[in-house]
């Protein structure tokens, strides 16, 4: 008996020693040496290890299509019924239901579960008329490759529309006012301006209900008008206009109350001892930096600088993370399977989305949930094999731009890939919250007045291709909404207060 206890004790001791040696080896190879936060660090490392290698335990890691669904959302959904029209953005409680309902229908259409009865080209007049009918107008804001839209909606990159439309900004679902037992879908191909009309056999009861429910409650404020309804998209015959608006821009013609937000660096990102170790480890791991081989120092601004042969990573305690590949180096290889030549816009986006999801995995869910792609993603983008993507935090339906030290407004994330390799990455790690407060703003026309005032006579007419709103984080606690004009003549957007 005594012998058995002794043996049992020896076995247990041996097992503990073996496990502890494995843990130590793991920490030396993949982690960092024991620090004051060793408990938190270990917990995070274990969590990360489990989620990576035993994903079936936690219900599976997020797939690309799931990440895409989070990062590629419609900027707004315009619901139209007779005289009523309302823009629903992501901050609105009704947004998710509308998105789910419209995407459910589109998924059925893309996967061929809802039969496409006919397909034809629609004239601009027909498209404008459809926009005024009972409809859901799903607007992405940017030009997006149709395969990516298909992936975010149906989980498949090849759908029923991807052969007809190469890139798109908007999808119009027209409910036909109950005349015919089908739904019409209009998609304008932004590459060739051709509007493709699909007639789809579908029980539209759910779509009908979603539209009707929006207008059951009283809608406050004025009804926004499309630029083409006001004839602001063309010059009068024989006269020259000073400004022209893209036809599908929605304009509020009376001043509105605009929301305010506040925000700052992510909680627990850094403290008086510097950047949180767990955060630092996770970021280093995402950038494939090996603690055994890299060099580390702190610069005068208090930023932690990590140097590897292929690039330099800087983490500023304010929440700015910046990676630059060394000149002559390929940067970080993200595409291991594909050959460099095979990295097209679709492949590049999958790499970018997966990389961002990986970096953000360590932070609160709000960080990735508020992020959205906010730049065009088309084949034009990477003609030279280089793709630059921008992502922004969207709060109250508007992106938050961050003012840099030179006074320029930057996106939350800017990422450049060259032939499947990450050569540049910048992220402002911030969190924002809505305030139950509003300020009175100016109308879009008044804002456009300011643009024209600052434009030389020979550069007129100004052509506004996109009009949206944003917040500018200039370090102030409270941020108010600004107008964002994207002009044909200018590569950078113009912000107007």
């Amino acid at each position, binding site marked *: 008996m005594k012998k058995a206890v002794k043996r049992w004790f020896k076995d247990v001791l041996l097992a503990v020693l073996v496990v502890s040696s494995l843990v130590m080896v793991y920490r030396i190879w993949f982690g960092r040496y024991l620090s004051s936060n060793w408990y938190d660090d270990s917990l995070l490392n274990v969590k990360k290890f489990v989620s990576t290698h035993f994903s079936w335990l936690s219900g599976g890691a997020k797939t690309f299509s799931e990440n895409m669904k989070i990062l590629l959302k419609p900027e707004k959904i315009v619901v139209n019924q007779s005289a009523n029209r309302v823009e629903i953005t992501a901050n609105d409680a009704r947004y998710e239901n509308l998105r789910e309902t419209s995407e459910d229908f589109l998924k059925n259409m893309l996967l061929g579960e809802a039969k496409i009865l006919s397909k034809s080209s629609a004239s601009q007049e027909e498209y404008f008329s459809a926009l005024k009918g009972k409809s859901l107008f799903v607007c992405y804001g940017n030009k997006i490759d149709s395969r990516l839209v298909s992936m975010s909606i149906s989980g498949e990159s090849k759908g029923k529309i991807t052969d007809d439309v190469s890139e798109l900004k908007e999808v119009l679902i027209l409910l036909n006012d109950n*005349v015919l037992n089908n739904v019409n879908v209009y998609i304008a191909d932004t590459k060739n301006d051709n509007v493709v009309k699909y007639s789809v056999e579908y029980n539209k009861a759910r779509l009908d209900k979603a539209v009707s429910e929006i207008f059951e409650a009283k809608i406050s404020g004025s009804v926004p008008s499309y630029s083409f309804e*006001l004839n*602001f998209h063309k010059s009068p015959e024989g*006269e020259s206009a*000073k400004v022209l608006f893209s036809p599908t821009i929605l304009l509020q013609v009376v001043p509105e109350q605009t929301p305010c937000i506040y925000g700052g660096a992510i909680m627990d990102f850094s403290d008086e001892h510097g950047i949180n170790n767990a955060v630092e480890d996770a970021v280093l791991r995402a950038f494939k930096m090996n603690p055994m081989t890299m060099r580390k120092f702190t610069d005068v601004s208090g930023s932690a600088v990590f140097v590897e042969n292929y690039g330099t990573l800087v983490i500023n305690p304010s929440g700015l993370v910046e990676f630059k590949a060394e000149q002559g180096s390929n940067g970080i290889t993200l595409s291991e399977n594909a050959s460099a030549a095979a990295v097209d816009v679709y492949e590049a986006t999958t790499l970018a989305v997966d990389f961002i999801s990986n970096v953000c995995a360590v932070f609160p869910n709000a960080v990735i949930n508020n992020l959205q792609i906010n730049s065009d993603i088309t084949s034009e983008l990477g003609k030279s094999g280089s793709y630059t993507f921008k992502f922004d935090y969207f709060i109250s339906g508007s992106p938050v731009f961050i003012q840099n030290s030179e006074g320029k407004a930057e996106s939350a994330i800017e990422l450049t890939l060259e032939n499947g390799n990450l050569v540049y990455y910048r992220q402002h790690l911030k969190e924002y919250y809505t305030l139950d407060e509003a300020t009175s703003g100016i109308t879009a026309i008044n804002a*456009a007045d300011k643009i*024209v*005032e600052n434009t030389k006579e020979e550069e007129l007419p100004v052509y506004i291709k996109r009009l949206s709103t944003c917040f500018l984080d200039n370090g102030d606690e409270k941020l108010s909404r600004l107008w964002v004009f994207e002009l044909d003549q200018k590569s950078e957007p113009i912000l107007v207060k």
Partner: protein
Amino acid sequence: MKLKKLNKLFAALLLFAVVFTAFGVTAFAAPEVMSAEAVSTAYNLVTLKAPETDGLSTTNKCLPISCAAPEGAVVTVYKYSAATGTYNKLYTSEGAAEATVGATMLFATQAELSLGSNKFLIRSAVDDSTYQIVKFEVTLLNEGFMDKIKSIAGMIFN
């Protein structure tokens, strides 16, 4: 003695400021009511952009109105009242449908239509006596009537 003089000077300045401000405001304010027979005293002060045609018929209760006018002109929208036989200044939820045109030379507003005929007048003025007016009419059709046509079409197509 000096203080009394100073007080008087301040009072005079204050009175001048009040009178000047009041004149400043009223000088460019458009009248609340326009006669049905009103005619333009000047031209090239306004071009109606929307609605494009006079005598438009619609089932949409909300009518977008837009026009082009020179920078600095005060554009005001009036709606005809059959009861008084005059055009009355239009008011939206945010106040009068009136604005001073900026550098874009554009003006836009919207009006809620009543069933049947709706007559509008747009006045673009550079001062009290120099203005151009444009009149147009829009008819709001009963949606029930349109629904009947649609249901007949539905029966044919389904």
